[in-house]
């Protein structure tokens, strides 16, 4: 069955190969433009802001079910939990809000950020754990429910705000962006898929009956409540699942590669609204 799937995907992939690339350094501004037009040309009828709704922007039947579920989404409980966690002071009396601009409300669209001090990409998840550690608390697991609830609440306070990712004038920032891009387009796993094989070459197409989400705006919906999980999951959890699905061994949560690919994809989604926390099949 998996073999069939592989062959089917390879065939569609062949039919929709993006233009061949010239080798060389990254030019984020030009790549942003090309990425955007690739998707808008491919889905000319789709409103730009709708890409952030993933598979639901691609399929009418799915969209209807999503609307029904979104009337009273099961992730409401995770948002509530995250809100309560966010408001609860650490043992030292400080709160998460003290670690963020605007007390952490409506800031999710500014993550990931490049941190000049460490020379690393800092995602919202990493920023939250840094905040915990700075206040004498144990960090949360990047793939588990507590982190998912916290980020769900923070995303909720940023709903509708346009993604706003900057690549500062620092060669290390550009290098992180380029590494993220490399991770995104590199084929891996025994099934020999890259992230792009599914989410650039085949958005809207089916793997069996699962509809693939477009890469454009894919991070704007994070974290996501997946029916397949029966719960809210972090960006890292989703990326690890992607790896497993192509029979690759997943990396630890918030590995450098994961952070960099989130950086790349979030930059590509600049200007598109935050839709997280999202629901997905």
């Amino acid at each position: 069955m998996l073999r069939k799937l592989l062959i089917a995907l390879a065939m569609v992939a062949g039919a929709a190969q993006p233009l061949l690339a010239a080798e060389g350094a990254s030019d984020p501004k030009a790549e942003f433009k090309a990425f955007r037009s690739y998707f808008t040309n491919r889905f000319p009828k789709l409103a730009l802001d709708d890409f952030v709704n993933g598979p639901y922007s691609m399929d009418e039947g799915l969209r209807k079910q999503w609307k029904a579920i979104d009337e009273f989404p099961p992730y409401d409980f995770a948002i509530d939990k995250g809100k309560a966690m966010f408001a609860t002071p650490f043992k030292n009396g400080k709160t998460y809000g003290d670690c963020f601009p605007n007390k952490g409300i409506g800031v999710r669209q500014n993550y990931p950020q490049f941190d000049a001090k460490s020379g690393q990409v800092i995602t919202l998840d990493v920023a939250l754990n840094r905040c915990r550690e700075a206040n004498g608390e144990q960090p949360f697991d990047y793939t588990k429910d507590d982190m998912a609830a916290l980020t769900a609440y923070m995303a909720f306070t940023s709903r509708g705000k346009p993604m706003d990712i900057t690549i500062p004038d620092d060669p290390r920032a550009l290098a992180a962006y380029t590494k993220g891009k490399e991770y995104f387009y590199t084929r891996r796993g025994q099934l020999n898929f890259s992230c792009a094989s599914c989410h650039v070459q085949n958005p809207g197409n089916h793997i069996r009956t699962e509809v693939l989400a477009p890469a454009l705006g894919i991070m704007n919906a994070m974290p996501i409540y997946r029916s397949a999980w029966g719960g809210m999951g972090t960006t890292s959890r989703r990326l690890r699942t992607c790896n497993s699905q192509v029979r690759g061994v997943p990396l630890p949560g918030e590995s450098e590669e994961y952070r960099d690919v989130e950086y790349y994809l979030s930059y590509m989604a600049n200007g598109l609204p935050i839709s997280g926390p999202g629901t997905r099949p």
Partner: protein
Amino acid sequence: MRTRTLIRLAVLASVAGFATAAVAASADDYKAAAAKADAAIKQAHALKNEWTTTGAAMKAAKAAADAGKFDEAVKHAQEAEALANGSIAQAKEQEKLWPDAVVR
């Protein structure tokens, strides 16, 4: 797409490996096969490109060896080595190929 043939090659290699080991294998044969597989797995790990099936094959090899079924153990270890080599080849090839896929 050269990489797509990797999987088939990996499978073929494991079958070929099994054929050569068809004459009753010993614990030492298994140890040798496992050592080769482990070396390949280490390399794949360093490249951050392991396949889940590699680990599964190694697990099957160990289980067979523990049960004294060395023919089977050697077969699985060779399969794991072939899969690990497939992932190594994939990673090295992709280092050159990935820019071709970038949307421009």
